[in-house]
């Protein structure tokens, strides 16, 4: 059984039909990527999975259990957390406080402490800055914090929304290395990206979204070879 099964969801913003029947499945231990242009519905998909938005039609199953009608906080408790687009750290709280907020839905203090240490081993930079106010961190550090915060929920499924956005290439590399490492330690990852090349380099499988519909679904390797993908998303002739 797939860890996450998204089955033909339609999501609206008021009258705007943003997702027109998206189906995605993510198996335990995988990295799956959603790529697509601006406005293709990538973030909407993530937010619908999280329960911040609710689908008008279609179902979402986590380990076979329907979650598409649950409120966001209950979905977090079931082990799905996200690092939102644009990082959105709590700017006036310190790094440590931000991480603590990530563990909000948990109450096992030992586990929280362990995970805090784990985040600090993944991102030593955050430990150096632990007392600093998050709003004063650099863009890359904020991205690390945003991912660290999502990891503090001890998720089985981590949703990453454009982690490379606005970062220098060298940092993007570092962030993607960390994504690989997070995955290697047993967390399943659903990765939304505009940087398709980087996304394919870490993902097992991928979906290409266009204006609210799935255009293609295949292994990452196959997608990278696909002519249309190469033309539209990799900028190759």
């Amino acid at each position: 059984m797939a860890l996450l099964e998204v089955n033909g969801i339609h999501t609206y913003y008021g009258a705007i039909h943003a997702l027109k029947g998206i189906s995605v499945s993510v198996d335990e231990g995988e990295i799956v990527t959603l790529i697509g242009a601006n406005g293709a519905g990538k973030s909407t998909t993530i937010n619908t999975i999280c329960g911040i938005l609710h689908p008008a039609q279609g179902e979402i199953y986590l380990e076979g259990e329907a979650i598409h009608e649950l409120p966001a906080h209950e979905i977090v408790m079931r082990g799905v957390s996200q690092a939102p687009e644009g990082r959105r750290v709590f700017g006036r709280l310190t790094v440590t406080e931000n991480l603590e907020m990530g563990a909000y839905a948990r109450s096992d203090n030992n586990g929280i402490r362990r995970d805090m240490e784990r985040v600090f081993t993944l991102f030593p930079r955050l430990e150096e800055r632990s007392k600093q106010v998050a709003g004063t961190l650099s863009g890359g550090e904020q991205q690390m914090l945003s991912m660290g915060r999502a990891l503090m929920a001890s998720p089985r499924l981590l949703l990453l929304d454009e982690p490379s956005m606005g970062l220098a290439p060298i940092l993007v590399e570092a962030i993607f290395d960390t994504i690989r490492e997070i995955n290697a330690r047993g967390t399943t990852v659903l990765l939304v990206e505009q940087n398709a090349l980087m996304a394919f380099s870490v993902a097992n499988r991928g979906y290409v979204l266009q204006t609210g519909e799935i255009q293609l679904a295949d292994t990452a390797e196959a997608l990278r070879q696909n002519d249309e993908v190469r033309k539209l998303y990799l900028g190759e002739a």
Partner: protein
Amino acid sequence: MGTQTRLDWGATVRLGLLAGVVALSLSLIGMVERFSERDIIGGVFSLGQVFLFGAAIGGGYLAARRSAGEELGRVLLGGLALGLISSLPLILLLVAGGLTDAEGGILLRRFLINVSPGLLKLLAFGQGQIAGSLILAAVTGVLGLVGAGVYLLPPRLGRPLLVGLISVFLIGLLSEIIILAWGNRGIGLIIRRFMFAARGLLVPGACLVFLVAAGSNVAWSGQQERVEQRLSTLGPEQQQRLRRGMIALGVLLLLVLPFILRTYLSEVIDNIGLYILMGLGLNIVVGFAGLLDLGYVAFFAIGAYAMGVLTSHSDLGVGGLSFWAALPFAVLAAVAAGIILGIPVLRMRGDYLAIVTLGFGEIIRILALSDFLAPYIGGAQGILLIPKARILGFEFVRPESLYYVILLACLLAVFVSWRLRDSRLGRQWMAMREDEDVAEAMGINLVKTKLLAFAIGAGFSGLSGAIFASKLSSIFPHSFQLLVSINVLCLIIVGGIGSLPGAMVGALILVGLPELLREFAEYRFMMYGALLIVMMLVRPEGFWPSAIHKRELHMEEPEALAHLAAGQTG
């Protein structure tokens, strides 16, 4: 050096004109003339003169500070020049005031109502236009010089001088209240005869105040270092004991306060206490949870009306309950109203939330005023005959005794706020205030969190309203104007948003001061406005800010910038 000097002159001219414009505006809004008879020191100088000339002295001081390090003569010259320049706007007023219309009235007065013959006479020192202008310029010039001189004094002399003068000014300003509170009996009466005129200090009284204030400042600055040194050498145990001693002293002071303050000032403290309660409640909604609520008075009204309906001895009273029995119901009514308001605005943010809550506040007031509900809550006639609180036959009638009821409520509110701030719920509020969407994605139940903020905040306000109803024995819809909401919001902003001591300091300043300065009632909102502008410019985090707010507004900027410069390197 040449350019340096020229630059300084430019600043002097600007500052001088600014001081002049301040004096001019205070004249034009009528404060100078109105308080020209209101003595600070009887027969020596009046409050009106302070308004008229304060700017020149202050300007001279600032100019001297700006040119610190220059040679003595130059600084003094700058002060003199500033004083002279500051008289220009006033002289202009004097000249323009000389123009008359066809009927021989003052032309300016047609559109500047406060340009009265009295004001012009004051400005000209009772002389003609030319002689008056010259005297005016000379006086402001000398005062500018004095201002600069005060700055130049070594701090050992300057500070006691300043402290002494400010003390004389404050005691002179508050003399009426001081007399009212302490000057009617026994020793107070004797001291009063020696120190105070009908309004303001007598010359010997002023000298005494000055000597005591300046003297104690001198004495303290001599001791300060030794005391601090002694404190720092104390062991942790002794420090703990010292802290406990201080707390005990504070508690004792709180307990005996009404005996010290007497009736009138106790009444003022009671009002401050009611606003502290509201401030602490709104602080939860706005300061902790970041939900801008402009209709906060509604919950105050609901608490008051619940108390009224449940306890009143008039025809409108239904429960006939005692104050204490009705109190929990009044609070619960407000809490319920908080939740009822909360539900429809769950999806709203920022400005939209502010507008909806504003409307809610007005709806409650208009309902209270309506004929529709008049059979139950009295409409415009309000509810009368609301009984006082009593315990074992003792009735809390006088402000001094009511103080203890309010103190108890405030302590409860402080305790609850303080425990909530560091609780899980407090963290939820903070995260929600920072970023609602992310807070939701972190697993925070926004519905519950928001409703709890509204409910608890409303509960404090309802408690305040219930005590208010019993304090006045009667309630009327006009007590629940929008202005109350604005006042409460202002007081938590001035005190420091999100901070518990801030709410108290804010209430002291925004509720206490206007009570003490009742003479300024008609200028109250102007002073409010000026205070808020100055606050936002000088201390945007408030008088007693919370740690988070302070670090937001005063991040170690150079360091933060260095990180930004390091930028994307991670």
